[in-house]
Structure formats: C-alpha cells, structure tokens
C-alpha cells in the first residue's frame, strides 16, 4: 500500500514519519498532485481557518477531495481530523472538507465542582475508550486499544451522536467528546498517536492494517 503524508507546512510531519518507520511502514511526503497514493495521512497543528485556506490555495484541496470521492482511506490527525468535518468554532467562516457531518467546539472551561478543573487547551495524556459498532472482527483488536493517549488541542467534536463504525470517548472537565472514529474510508484521530508511546504506535499499525485489508 502506498502511503502519502500531506506536507502542508503547518504540521509536525517528521514525528509522524518517524512513528511509521518505527512500525516498519513505508511512507512518503506528498509534494505534488499525484493520484497514486492508496492512503493519505493528514497531520496538522495550528489554526483551522489558516490550514484550510492554505489547502485551498494549493493542489492539496483537489487531490484530497478526489481521493475521498474514490473512497480511498484518509487518516486525519489532530487538526487534520478537524479539517475532515464541516466547520470549527475556531474559524466559523471557513468550510472544512465536510467528508463527515459535524463541527468542532471549544473545550469547556472548568467549573467549581470539578475535582481538578483544567483550563483549555487540553495538553497531555487523556484516557480513550474505543467502541466497535460493527460486527467486523477485524476491528476488534483495534477497539481493544483503550488507554492513555497524548492530546494537544483546544477544540473537540462534542456533539456527535452518530454511531460511527468505530467510535470512542474521552472527557475534558467532565464533558464527553469524540477523540477517535472510523467511518468508511475516514479515520479521525484528535490525539497524537505518534507521541503516545507504545499505545499510539500499536494503534497506528492497527488502523493501517485495517485499511490495508479493506483496500
């Protein structure tokens, strides 16, 4: 499977590539509009509006859109996950790719009843519970990945009632959000698997195996 990593200049792509090397998965950085990739990884840190605008101003918007149209797998990490949805409170006037319905909202500020209230952003390890909503056995191992993962974000998918094929939940100041999902060809990861130790590396390899078998 040929894996390309979006090189949009606003993300820490090296750490994603290093993580893929560690689990013996070959990947390359995408530098031109090339339809030959089987799977695209879109990492991202930074601002929703800025990132989306710079995609629109390059070949990436077309390339990613047609990749999705062909039902080929896309993994969005952190801001990369957010861009796959419709919009974000961070940049209300900017439209995301909209491959999945939903929008990202600011994480809640602490309230006084909390044992340990946290001021957003969410920096650090949070617990993630995965849930397989299909009867696909090939997703069972992946959904056994409950554990701590490393987060660095201010906006989250909080309003999602939809039972994605794989869904998940975490909490920030007691409020639930969706830190991970798989639906058809899309995988969204709010946390950083490339920075979450063995848990993260195992999860990455499970996701890629799953898509590899599907392709």
């Amino acid at each position, binding site marked *: 499977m040929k894996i390309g990593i979006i090189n949009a200049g606003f993300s*820490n792509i*090296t*750490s994603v590539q*290093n*993580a893929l*090397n*560690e689990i013996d998965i070959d990947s390359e950085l995408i530098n031109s509009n090339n339809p030959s990739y089987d799977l695209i990884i879109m990492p991202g*840190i*930074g601002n929703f509006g800025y990132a989306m605008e710079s995609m629109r101003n390059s070949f990436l918007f077309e390339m990613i859109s047609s990749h999705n149209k062909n039902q080929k797998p896309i993994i969005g990490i952190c801001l990369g996950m957010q861009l796959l949805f419709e919009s974000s409170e961070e940049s209300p006037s900017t439209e995301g790719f909209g491959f999945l319905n939903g929008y990202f909202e600011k994480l809640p500020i602490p309230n006084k*009843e*909390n*044992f*340990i209230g*946290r*001021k957003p*952003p969410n*920096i*650090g*390890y*949070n*617990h993630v519970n995965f849930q397989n909503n299909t009867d696909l056995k090939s997703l069972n191992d992946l959904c056994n990945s409950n*554990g*701590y993962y*490393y987060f*660095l974000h*201010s906006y989250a998918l909080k309003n999602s009632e939809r039972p994605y094929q794989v869904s998940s939940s975490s*909490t*920030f*100041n*007691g409020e639930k959000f969706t830190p991970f999902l798989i639906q058809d060809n899309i995988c969204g990861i709010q946390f950083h698997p*490339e*920075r*979450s*130790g*063995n*848990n*993260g*590396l195992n999860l990455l390899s499970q996701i890629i195996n799953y898509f590899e078998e599907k392709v």
Partner: protein
Amino acid sequence: MLQEVPNRIIARLDIKNDHVVKGLMMEGVQRVGNPIELAQRYYHQGADEILILDTVASLYQRIELPEIISEIVKKTFIPICAGGGIASTEDAEKLFYSGADKICLNTAAVHDPTLISDLANKFGSQSVVAQIDVKNYHNEYIIFVNSGRDITKYKLDEWIKCVQDHGAGEILITSIDRDGMARGADYELLNIVKEHCNVPFIYGGGIQDNNEIKKLFEEEIINLTLASSLHYNDIDISKTKEILSSQGFLVRTNNL
C-alpha cells in the same frame, strides 16, 4: 469527579556540550551520559515526557539542541519539551522543526516577558512552557537565571503571575536549593506555586525515591521531573509506575 489526567513523570536531561550532565544546586556539573541513549532508556522505562535543556546556551547565546533532538525523536515517541537559550521566535522555530512539541523559556523571558506572548501567539500557548528556577534567598523565593547563576528582581509569585499573563501554557518550577540533593521536595515553595498557578505546573528538585513521588502525588502535585534519581539508577520509572498504579495512583503504563 475523578481525576482526568494521569500523574506524569518527566525525565529531565540537562545538556552541556553534547553530554547529559547533572550537578548539585545547578553547580559542579558532572557528565552522566549520552542524551540520545538516555532519552531512549527513559522512554522505554515509561517516562511520560522528555525535558531537554541546554544548560549553557543562554551564557554563550547559541542553540545546539536541534541536532540532538532530531536524533532523539527518531526513536522516542512521547512529547519532547526543549529549552535553554531561546531568545527569539527563530530559535524556537528551530527547536519545533527539529521535533520538539513544546519549548521552554527562561533567561530571555525574564529580560523581556513579551517573548512569551510572541511565542504563544505564534505557536499557541499549549506549546510554550515558562521555566522558573527559584531559590530561597534571605527567606524569600527569588527567581534566578542563567542556570541558577544570576539573581533577578522577581519574587516567585510576581513572576508566576507575569508569565501567565503573557500566555505561558505550562510552568516548570525547579528548586535550585533542592536540585540534585536527593533530600525531598520544597513544600513551602510548592504552597506558593499551588496558590498562584492557574495553568498546569511541573515540579523538579530533590525527588529521591518512590515515597517522595507518592507524597507529591497525594498533595496533587501531579507533574514531576526526575533527573539525578534516574541518571544514578535510584528510580526506574517502570517499577515506580507499577508500584504507584497498584496503590491506586493514576499513571500511564504501556498496557493501561
């Protein structure tokens, strides 16, 4: 509500001329190993983060960490916080590009606190850590810079407020008096920190064994840096986490 975030154990590497060094009260530094090897060793032990600080960078006004960091991140898959000598957004950029997830500001921020807000605006507060080296000086907690060599005009509470107002996302407190001494944390200092910090803070200095770690976690001081105790093998993070986890403390282990 239950504690949402696990207690963190952060491995601290102080760098001088390509070597990891460790001193007592930030003085008389001794070489203790190779940064790339030690980062990997502590990663495999289950460290939650690596903190890597160039101890002489601000004296010589140079940044040598990027090369070391780009090697470390090839085999270390936890967050890396880097600092020492950062005096401009360009310096910070070099560290981010080499693979650091967060950067740590100290001396230059004391000379000009707007550096904190410049970096927070550019890279986000979550990526900017204010490093505060503090010493009990005539019964007052005073901020020191240049790896504990030079006194400043700031008292601890004033400086905490200032770095928070400028947008620091996290605060790293080191007790110079306890650094490398292995005789426990400075709880009097920590009381001031707890009272004034409204962003997450990390404490280091004097943490010598599992009992001390436990005591700090019980006091809700949940982010700790360890240096000497790791370098001299007094603490093995995997064993410490196993013990603490069995006693009900929330810690990240590789199979949890």
